[in-house]
């Protein structure tokens, strides 16, 4: 397959994620409103918010350095890059060898790093606390993600996400093996936390972890950052789907098969959001200091799946 065509698919993927991400966050807001029996915003409210913010004037704190000004573009660009790298529509990574899971994990870390740094750089005490919490949660969740990804990589014999996707879709890595479904369970928990859902975080409130570092942002930068946060949620879910539920993705590249895999991807992500909405609205906010209890259990399960892999179960 010519490389140019794949690059094109990568661009399509990134654009696709860029365009649909606000719908999903809107969906989760609507679902929450429905579960609270209030009217709530409609699904497209996030687009209106973003366009309203773009038109507003931008204010930058006097103490802030270039980090503060560059972060929106860096975060947006990196998230777009991850969206290009992960096999979302096809069963292979559009950027070939760049679709390496280690690279993806590091790219996610770059997003988080700059996000937290900008929160600190803003000079606002509030943003600083948000940043430190974001990093604390990251330290708790990342080991689980990395361990499960390595486990799957060991099973597939390759760290290429595309090859992992193909092997899972072909049934070579079967769900019957306890190591796989244990890993899937703990990865699902990690994904749930990463998307900023309620017992840990409320991804749409300024006093919470994910939006805390945004305190000092305004205008266009705020719009860009918010948009990339919406995208990050979809991207993290896409990573989960690419590793554990690659069914429906196009094995051969053609326009029709790409359209089909777009539709299945939308369905799968909607399913994830519906389940997440049901879960998060049945729980109360967890103290950040209590979060390690849950993440340690998730990590323990991931570790257990690794033990089962070693024992050849």
């Amino acid at each position: 397959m010519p490389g140019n065509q794949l690059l094109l698919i990568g661009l399509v993927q990134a654009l696709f994620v860029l365009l649909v991400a606000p719908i999903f966050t809107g969906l989760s807001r609507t679902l929450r409103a429905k579960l609270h029996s209030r009217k709530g915003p409609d699904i497209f409210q996030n687009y209106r918010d973003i366009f309203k913010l773009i038109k507003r004037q931008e204010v930058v704190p006097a103490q802030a350095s270039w980090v503060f000004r560059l972060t929106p573009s860096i975060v947006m660009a990196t998230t777009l890059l991850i969206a290009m790298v992960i096999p979302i529509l096809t069963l292979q990574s559009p950027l070939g060898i760049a679709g390496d899971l280690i690279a993806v994990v590091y790219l996610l870390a770059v997003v988080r790093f700059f996000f937290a740094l900008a929160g600190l750089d803003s000079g606002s005490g509030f943003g600083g606390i948000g940043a430190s919490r974001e990093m604390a949660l990251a330290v708790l969740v990342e080991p689980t993600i990395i361990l499960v990804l390595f486990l799957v990589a060991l099973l597939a014999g390759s760290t290429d996400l595309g090859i992992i996707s193909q092997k899972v879709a072909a049934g070579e890595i079967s769900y019957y093996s306890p190591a796989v479904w244990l890993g899937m369970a703990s990865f699902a928990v990690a994904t749930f936390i990463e998307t900023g859902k309620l017992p840990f975080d409320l991804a749409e409130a300024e006093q919470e972890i994910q939006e805390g570092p945004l305190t000092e942002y305004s205008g266009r930068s705020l719009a860009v950052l918010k948009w990339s946060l919406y995208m990050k949620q979809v991207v993290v879910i896409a990573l989960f789907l690419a590793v554990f539920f690659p069914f429906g993705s196009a094995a051969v590249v053609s326009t029709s098969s790409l359209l089909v895999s777009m539709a299945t991807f939308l369905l799968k992500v909607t399913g994830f959001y519906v389940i997440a909405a049901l879960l998060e609205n049945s729980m109360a906010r967890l103290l950040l200091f209590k979060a390690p209890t849950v993440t340690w259990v998730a990590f323990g399960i991931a570790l257990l799946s690794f033990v089962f892999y070693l024992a050849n179960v």
Partner: protein
Amino acid sequence: MSGTSVVNALAVLLILTSMLVVETRKLQTAAYMYSIQSLVLVAIFLSLAVFMEAEPLYIWSITALITKTFLVPYLILRTLKKVGIQEEGPALETSSSIFLAVGLVALSFVVVEPFHMHAVLKLKVALAVSIAHFLLGLLCILARRNALKQILGYCLMENGSHLTLAIMAYNAPETVEIGILTDAIFAVLIMTIIARRLFKDFGTLDTDKLTLLKG
């Protein structure tokens, strides 16, 4: 899906539920978890009965269903109602006890590795799980301070030894099995009565605080 893979998957579920029993702070939830776990144990017995064609195991599973899934949690919950629901303090942090639990599971896999008995060759995983289960029960007793939680730990150990028995000697007569089960029930009954007396006299079930004699 072959028979052994069903047993393996259920065995993994058993480990998962027992870890939840150990880690859950709320005693009521832990008791329910124990009930679920016993249900998984019964499912293992049933699948062993089908795949090994062992008739006695059907009766085993029925008695286990009655005693472990319903009676033991009922006894614990009844005692809980009497003493009030007590959250236990952290005797061992979640992080370290999870690491210990995973380490114990790994250890039991290592221990089982050199086994070459004909009877258990196919069910090595389940055997390892049963040993791991016994160790997890021990961990629960050592790492938790609440007396009722320690009773649950004892029940976990009992489940583990039970599974070992079912794997090693699935054709043992039913009387053996029923004897063992009723034994366990009486042990739990007596322990809950003691726990209730302890609570009456000391006002706590924290075993660290039970250091004084009171007459």
